């Protein structure tokens, strides 16, 4: 059983290695380019972009403030619920007659 598992594992490893070597060999050898790609030359001023590519800020600002309010209110609601539950248990225990 162990021998079979090891054999299958070896086969998988061998196949992976050959496909990796094959892929590396298939890569076209390109001459090293001296100049970096144009995109890294500098930043593009946001005013030069077409209106389609300009991201509106209002939804992001509203989203951020809405998230903060929701997070705080959910925490307060959970805290309130836990406080009420513990208080209820405490009241029930106070009224429990000693056995």
């Amino acid at each position: 059983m162990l021998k079979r598992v090891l054999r299958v594992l070896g086969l998988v490893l061998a196949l992976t290695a050959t496909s990796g070597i094959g892929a590396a060999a298939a890569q076209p050898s390109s001459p090293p380019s001296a100049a970096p790609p144009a995109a890294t030359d500098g930043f593009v001023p946001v005013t030069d972009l077409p209106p389609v590519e300009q991201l509106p800020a209002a939804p992001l600002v509203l989203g951020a403030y809405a998230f903060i309010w929701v997070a705080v209110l959910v925490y307060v609601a959970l805290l309130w619920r836990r406080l009420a539950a513990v208080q209820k248990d405490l009241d029930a225990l106070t009224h429990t007659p000693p056995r």
Partner: protein
Amino acid sequence: MLQRSVPLLLVTTIAAFSVAPFLIHNAPYESTMGLVQKIFYFHAPAGIVMFLSAFVCGISSAIFLFRGRQGADRVAVAAAELTVLLGTIVLATGPLWARKAWGVWWQWDARLTSSLLLWMMFTACLLVRRYGGPGSDKLAAAVAIFGMFNVPFVYVSVNVWRTLHPKTTVVPMLGPGMREPFWFCILAFLSLYVLLLALRVRLAEQQATLDARYLELDDRASA
């Protein structure tokens, strides 16, 4: 003392968070980022109060660990929860700002990554306490102390490493008109923090009283 100030804190917090949107609305636009920079007025105060909360949690945990004071443990668990809450706010609002300002939601730079690690440490602290079994409170306290020591690294990360995030000099150099709403929001978040801390500590105290009553009843039943 903390519990008695709850009504006053509640009124202060509601008043502060009612006024804050007007102050933020009237604050001038930042010259390069425009409207999206207004996220700063809640993002940065939440981050600063998160650091404070991590210190409260770490110091309380150290007192609990070395002196064995149960009161300190209750403050520690409350502060750990609030650190996670504030961290969630910081980590959610930051990417919304970054998407517009940097063009990406997230960047694995020093400030963002260390903030995420800080959040994960305090989340781990809560998870250990919740699911760790007997003795996990002490283990969680140790994790919280490590979390506290992570805070200075998060703070200085923007000055030490190259990062997209603004440096710590941004706050002292805020222009007139931006400074006042920012400090007002800091006070609002501080008020909210102390209020939630007081309520969470009260919950921990009531849970401890409940546990003590159950033990008392068990003792009576077995006697």
